Every structure is written in C-alpha cells, then in structure tokens.
C-alpha cells in the first residue's frame, strides 16, 4: 500500500519517510513539489543526557499555546556497525506524544556526521504546507560539528547541565559561540551557579551581530524557567526579523543543502564503483569521480 490514505497525518508521515530514504536523484525530483520555506525553526542541541527531549516536551506545550501547531523532528544516532538505530527521544516526550496539535517524528542520523541527518534540509522543507506554525529540531548532540544546525534553523538553543564543565572547554570554539540562547538545565543540581556564570562570560562577548544571548536556567519543577525560555525564543525571533537578511539566510541554506547533496552523491558513486576505482591514485580518482557526478550519469 503506497497511495494516499484518508488520514492527512499519515500522508505527511509517509512523505517524510520517502524524503528520508530518497537518493540524490529522487531528492532533486521532489524539489518542485515543496512550498517555499517560511515556518520559524527552533534548533535544540547539546550533549547526550543534557535533557533536550524533556525540555522540548515542555517547550512545545508552551509554544503551542502561543503559536499553534508544532512539528518536532528529533534526530538520533545511527549505529555505524549495523546501520540500525534506537530512536529513543519520544520516551521523554510522552506528555505531548498524542497531542493532536503536536507532531513528533524520530529520524536516524544515517550517514551524516554533523549531528543532523542526511536529508535534514529536505525534511525541514517538507514540513511546510501541512498546517504547522513552528518547527522544533532536536539534534544528536555531538559537540563541535553541530554548528551546521546554525545554518538550518532561525534560533539555536544550546542545552547544558551543571556537570558539563569539562564539555564546555571542548565546545568553546564550536557550538558554544553559535547559540542564540543558552539553557542551564537541571539547574537545581549543584554547580549551576558556576556553570551559568561561565556561560554568561562567553555570552556577553561581542558576536558582531548585536544579539546578546540570554542564559536561562531551567529545572524540572520550575515553570518560571520554561516561561523565560519561551519568552527568550520569541524575543530572538523578533530581533531576527529586524536584524538579519532573509536573502542571506536563504543562500546559506541553499549552500548547505547543495554541499550535502554533492557529498551524498559522491558516497553513492563510491558505493557503486568497485575496488579498482579506489586504486587509481588520488588525482585520477578525483577526475574519475567528477566525471561520474551528476544525478543521471553512469546509471
């Protein structure tokens, strides 16, 4: 059974599977059917165990009250050994999992190494035109490489916990400088004050664009924290509307998507070719690879 069903939610869900599974040729063929992107996108990132999924559940309930229908895309890592995955983010989102106004979709990262999934750009675009008002993207949380989330979403929320002090050191040059909002989650734990002070030090540094990222503390039983996070996201969206160039954003996303498509196409070609293709030596290999690129060549 692959035709459309009478259930619009199921049709969307199936469309997402088609996009997630599409090869480069199919992805390109689907582009014309997509509405131009217009939905606000919130990205939530941070190390595993920081509490991203639970935080998104609380946040989605608040955003729903103000914005309307919310779509959540949650990316979990694919095992490099089996290519399989356990998509566990939903367990932490059980309070919202059967809310008719919130759609949650779990996505395996597959071959991507940047904390996103292969087709994240396409999946985000596919959420347009289905009656949603806002998209929340949860990423794998692998640290530095995740700055690519910056390109694909409008507001980056970085979730930290009091005990992630050493992680901060490792993250300093990466995502830590890219976040629009910092959250110190589990802030009822010891060390929260120190963590918040350290982050405030990073956040107060001039970013060059005029936005000073707030540092917000959240904890399980503290509604004030989630209220502040909700308000912080809205404030950033308002600031963004007056201070960023939509054409520049669109071009940066087009560039990311194009780079991703080429990288996937290279992978497809190398998978198709045999060992002798790899034995050529880098210069010949590169030339042969370039000759083989293009969605329809050589098939």
């Amino acid at each position, binding site marked *: *059974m692959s035709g459309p*069903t*009478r*259930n619009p*939610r*199921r049709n969307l*869900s*199936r469309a*997402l*599977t088609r996009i997630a*599974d599409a090869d480069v040729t199919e992805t390109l063929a689907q582009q014309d059917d997509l509405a131009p992107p217009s939905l606000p996108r919130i990205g939530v990132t941070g190390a595993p165990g920081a509490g991203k999924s639970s935080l998104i559940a609380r946040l989605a309930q608040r955003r729903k009250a103000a914005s309307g229908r919310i779509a959540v895309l949650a990316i979990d890592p*694919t*095992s490099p*050994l*089996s*290519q*399989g*995955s*356990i*998509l*566990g983010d*939903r*367990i932490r989102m*059980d309070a919202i*999992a*059967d809310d008719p106004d919130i*759609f*949650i*979709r*779990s996505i*395996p990262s597959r071959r991507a190494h940047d904390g996103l999934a292969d087709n994240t750009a396409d999946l985000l675009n596919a959420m347009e035109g289905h009656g949603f008002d806002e998209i929340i993207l949860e990423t794998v949380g692998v640290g530095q490489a995740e700055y690519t989330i910056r390109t694909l979403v409008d507001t980056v929320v970085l979730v930290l916990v009091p005990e992630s002090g050493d992680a901060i050191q490792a993250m300093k040059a990466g995502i830590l400088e890219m976040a629009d909002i910092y959250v110190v989650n589990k802030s009822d734990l010891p060390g929260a004050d120190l963590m918040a002070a350290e982050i405030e030090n990073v956040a107060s540094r001039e970013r060059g664009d005029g936005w000073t990222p707030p540092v917000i503390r959240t904890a399980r039983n503290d509604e004030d924290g989630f209220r502040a996070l909700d308000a912080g996201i809205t404030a950033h969206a308002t600031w963004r509307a007056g201070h960023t160039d939509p054409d520049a954003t669109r071009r940066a996303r087009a560039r990311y998507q194009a780079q991703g498509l080429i990288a996937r196409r290279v992978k497809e070609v190398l998978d198709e070719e045999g060992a002798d293709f790899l034995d050529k030596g880098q210069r010949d290999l590169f030339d042969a690879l370039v000759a083989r690129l293009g969605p329809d060549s050589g098939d």
Partner: protein
Amino acid sequence: MSLKGKRILIAKPGLDGHDVGAKIIALALRDAGADVIYTGLRRSPDYIAKVAVDEDVDAVGLSILSGSHKELVEETVRCLTDLDAGDIHIFVGGTIPSEDHDELRGAGARGIFTAEMTVDDVVSAIDADLGA
C-alpha cells in the same frame, strides 16, 4: 538478514511493568539494521496507534506479559484501522499460551513470540514477514 531501512515500533501496552524482553528485542532489531522506536511502559492502544502513524512504521511489536493479550491486540488493530493504518503489521511477544495463538492470528497478529524462542528466531521471523 537485513532489516535496513525498516521502521519498527516496540510498544508496551497494558499494565505490566516488565520491559527487559522488549528492550532485548529492540536492540536485536537495531543490530539487524532496523530503525527502532520504543514507547516506554504502560501505553494505551490508542497512544501506540498514533505513534505508529506519526513515525510511519512498517510494524508494531507489542510486548505483553499481563495476560490481556487478546484485548490489547484487538484494540490496537482497531485503533490502527481507525487511523487508516490497518496495513501496519502487528507482532506480539510475551507470555502467550499456545491455545490463544490462533485467536491472536485471527485478530491480525502476523507473528507470536514466546520465551521458548531465541532472539535470532524472533528477528528472522520479523525479517521474513517484512520481506526485506
């Protein structure tokens, strides 16, 4: 054997709180290449059906140790059908007496897995059914 690209929901309907078996099967399915979503404990058939639709799974595995397998399987099938998703395959695992197997198959279960089977047997049966 490969379940690569298949999406499978492992669900715990009803009131029993034992999910070691469900988790072992979830890990084995992942190791066979599947993308596995786990619901957590004590979910209603209605909840499970909604998650199955949003996640666009190929199959739902119900882990039931409470003895209410007949009601829970029938109810899950009914909820899926109400969402126009009756084509999603259903498997049942747990303490299922053999005299109930025919009835469960009649209700729509494509496979019934009990403690006598090895994990590999279970994964093979799901693999064969989903026709990878």
